[in-house]
């Protein structure tokens, strides 16, 4: 699966994420107060304005703190009744119709049916729910205002904060109900859609090896199953009658043969390995070039999309994954490595066979390196390789880490030098993965290509250790949790905008804010002057670059010092900080969806859920406060 943004572990994220949130909220609160003060001062003089602002602040704090749950619950109930009444169930009916016609669009013969079904189901659910919730949240308050029903409420002892919170919670409850029901239906749809069986008929099987049955038992057979759902499996039956339908379209089937008299009945089990949620253990990737000098990136073979970088075959070049704190109990008797490699051939070479490659396991502390396994590369499919706990290596040596002076002016580089193992280790028959080859849970997996003139391509997420599997159902729920978070964001933005904008304008504003999130990397790049990958933008901030454009100066040369430059740069500093704040304010909406993980059968990590859950909460609270202040300063009975 392609993982382009790196997933921070929760604790690490904790230091940076909430800190930014506080900084941003603080700036906004300050800006709000100053703005309020200015408006008040404009209206009724600076001194009175001071009093007003103070009063507004105190009553604001009071309103936020003294929220009564009973009143909020009453308003939530009202919001729920209101939205249910607005035939929210229509959305559900549309969903059912879409599902029933889905069969036309999901081509059964696809290579990875799970991906198609899940991405279809999740995207259609999220579109429908988000649209519904957008309409509900953006139009409810303005309608109340237009119908003046809000007057009656405001004359009751109801704080504006309770009204806003009531609305938000109301729609969240409605959305959650709908999501839960749609989730259940989707789960059934996916299961039913993917469930299928094949028939295995005696005629399709041919005996393997010796012709007649050895001792009255069954003869090991080979053949293929019937075609259903656009694919067919190879069938393998061993002498004891246990059989298996080989991997096709990401799944296998169990096969039970029962012999009654001379008649052999084959009974095919349900598809296995289709609905999975792998728990990957990712390592940190780095490369070594032909002379085993450590490099950040491998060779680029001209792919437009530089996600994978390549290592040259038949040379010392290798891709190195470092795995940390791998516990022996996770991998009791063998290490299951799963990888999807890119292969780049410069010559046709041996057409029939795949390219040979090899795994080396290295102990980062002692440098002991063991050649664990030779394999044939399979492109674009998840290739499973097993490294036994007790490795009987074909090759043993040491790879010592050495720092050598970098070429003129560059900082020193790290090189790996090979030293032959001393006699004792050389003839040691077996090496234990955890005792000998890892330094308390830390070891390196080196991947090499053995075919000269050919290349292996790898990215960090391409190779991982597969510990136990998480339950697919739970993963499916987490997938829906992703949509739920997106829904909460839409509601929060919708209600906040609806407090001071009319219905349709509020809707457009909400969509604008959420789509704005997509340009977040660009805005951060503008604010910090360099992209995430570190490419530096020249030409300074907005004002400075404007001057450069007008004076037709090129981008790189420094502007000559002087009053104009310093003024421009200070203004830029403020502007860039504002852009930065703006970038932080807008949520990166796309990141909250987790459909890909579920579709590709990868477990959504707890850290991901926690991080995104917390940031959604952060947005919810911030937007609630902003919505409250807007509603408070607004005269309901205008």
């Amino acid at each position: 699966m392609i993982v382009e943004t790196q997933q921070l572990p929760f604790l690490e994220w904790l230091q940076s994420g909430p800190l930014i949130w506080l900084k941003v909220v603080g700036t906004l609160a300050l800006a709000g107060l100053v703005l309020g003060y200015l408006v008040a001062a404009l209206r009724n003089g600076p001194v009175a304005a001071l009093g007003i602002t103070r009063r507004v602040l105190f009553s604001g704090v009071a309103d936020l703190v003294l929220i009564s749950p009973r009143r909020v619950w009453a308003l939530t109930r009202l919001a729920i009744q209101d939205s249910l009444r607005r035939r929210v169930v229509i959305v559900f009916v549309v969903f059912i119709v879409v599902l029933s016609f889905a069969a036309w669009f999901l081509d059964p013969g696809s290579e990875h049916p799970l991906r198609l079904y899940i991405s279809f189901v999740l995207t259609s659910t999220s579109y429908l729910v988000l649209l519904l919730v957008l309409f509900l949240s953006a139009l409810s308050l303005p309608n109340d205002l237009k119908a003046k029903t809000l007057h009656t409420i405001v004359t009751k002892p109801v704080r504006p904060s309770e009204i806003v919170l009531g609305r938000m919670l109301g729609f969240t409850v409605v959305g959650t109900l709908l999501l839960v029901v749609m989730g259940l239906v989707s789960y059934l749809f996916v299961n039913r859609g993917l469930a299928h069986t094949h028939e295995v008929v005696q005629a399709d099987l041919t005996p393997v090896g010796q012709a007649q049955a050895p001792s009255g038992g069954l003869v090991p057979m080979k053949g293929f199953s019937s075609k259903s759902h656009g694919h067919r499996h190879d069938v393998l039956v061993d002498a004891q009658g246990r059989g298996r339908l080989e991997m096709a379209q990401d799944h296998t089937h169990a096969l039970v043969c029962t012999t009654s008299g001379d008649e052999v009945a084959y009974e095919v089990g349900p598809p296995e390995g289709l609905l999975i949620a792998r728990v990957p253990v990712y390592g940190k990737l780095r490369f070594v070039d032909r002379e085993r000098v450590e490099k950040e990136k491998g060779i680029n073979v001209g792919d437009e999309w530089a996600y994978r970088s390549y290592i040259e075959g038949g040379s010392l070049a290798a891709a190195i994954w470092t795995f940390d704190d791998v516990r022996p109990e996770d991998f009791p008797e063998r290490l299951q490595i799963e990888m999807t490699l890119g292969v780049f051939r410069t010559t046709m070479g041996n057409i029939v066979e795949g390219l040979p490659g090899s795994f080396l396991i290295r102990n980062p502390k002692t440098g002991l390196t063991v050649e664990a396994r030779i394999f044939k590369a399979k492109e674009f499919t998840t290739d499973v390789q097993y490294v036994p706990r007790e490795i009987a290596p074909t090759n043993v040596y040491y790879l010592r880490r050495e720092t050598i002076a970098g070429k003129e002016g560059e900082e020193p580089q790290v090189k790996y030098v090979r030293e032959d193992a001393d006699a004792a280790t050389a003839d040691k028959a077996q090496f234990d993965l955890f005792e000998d080859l890892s330094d308390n849970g830390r070891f390196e997996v080196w991947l090499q290509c053995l075919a000269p003139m050919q290349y292996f391509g790898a990215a960090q997420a391409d190779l991982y250790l597969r510990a136990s599997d998480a339950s697919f159902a739970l993963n499916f729920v987490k997938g829906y949790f992703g949509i739920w978070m997106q829904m909460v964001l839409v509601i929060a933005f919708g209600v906040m905008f609806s407090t001071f904008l009319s219905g349709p304008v509020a809707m457009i504003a909400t969509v604008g804010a959420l789509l704005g999130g997509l340009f977040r990397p660009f805005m951060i790049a503008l604010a910090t002057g360099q992209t995430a990958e570190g490419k530096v933008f020249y030409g300074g901030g907005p004002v400075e670059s404007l001057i450069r454009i007008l004076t037709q100066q090129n981008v790189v040369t420094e502007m000559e010092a002087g009053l104009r430059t310093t003024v421009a740069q200070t203004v830029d500093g403020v502007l860039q900080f504002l852009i930065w704040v703006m970038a932080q304010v807008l949520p990166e909406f796309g990141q909250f969806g987790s459909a890909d993980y579920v579709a590709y059968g990868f477990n959504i990590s707890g850290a991901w859920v926690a991080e995104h859950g917390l940031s959604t909460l952060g947005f919810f609270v911030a937007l609630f406060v902003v919505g409250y202040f807007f509603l408070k300063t607004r005269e309901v009975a205008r």
Partner: protein
Amino acid sequence: MPNDVVIETRNLTKVYRDFWGRQKVRALKALDLEIRRGEIFGLLGPNGSGKTTTIKLLLGLLFPTSGRALVFGRDATDVTKNERIGYLPEESYLYKFLSAEETLDFYGRLFKMSRRLRRQRTAELIEQVGLVRAKRRQLREYSKGMTRRIGLAQALINDPELILLDEPTTGLDPLGTRDMKQMILDLRDRGKTIVMCSHQLDDVQDVCDRIAILYEGELKELGRVDSLLKVHDVTEIHAKKVSDETQRQIKQLIERDGGELVSMGNPTITLERLFLDIIEESEAHPGRRVRGGREA
């Protein structure tokens, strides 16, 4: 501020501004007012004279441009005061998809009331405003009168100490008006304070203790109704079974003292009075009724 003063305004002004802050309408100019507990206070004045603006300022629906409005001693914008206030707007804006019971239940929840008390008051009020038969039906199917009555019910759901009524009697048939006035008087008898603004002068006359007359946002007249309406140099006597002879002697008596008899004869009851008597009579004993003259 003495504890029996429920509402107090000190040169309360409200100026409506357009988006650019340019002054458009001076709705209320420096109103100073005090309303004590247990009285029915009327706010009179032609349309656009600032009556409704005053009510909304007292409720905190609008923010004063300058001056202060205090209710129960607290600022009008303080939401907690609403616990003890009931407000019947000119048209009651209620959720069309809720039934009467649900409406009252919903508004009841917004007050500090136990579930049992809320249930009991809902039933009481529905019975009191005579909507028992229609309590399950959604408000969208209510007639104008019924909507009015459920509006009144929701205003009284929290047994408020201060009730603000905006044009309570407009749009009601005489029967409804009578009930409304009777209800207002009952509330006052139970020690509530009522502020009502209206331009139905006769209703105000019947009910209000003190009135204030506003014109173009300014207070023109303030005082007790009865003292204001009394025509001091004219006395009015109502007597029954007065033969013609006695009427003549009365006429002489007045003229002897130098008084001047303006008029004497059978007083005419108001049409409203006639209408109500007939309706009450037909409510008492349905069926055909003998038409014709009547005695007071």
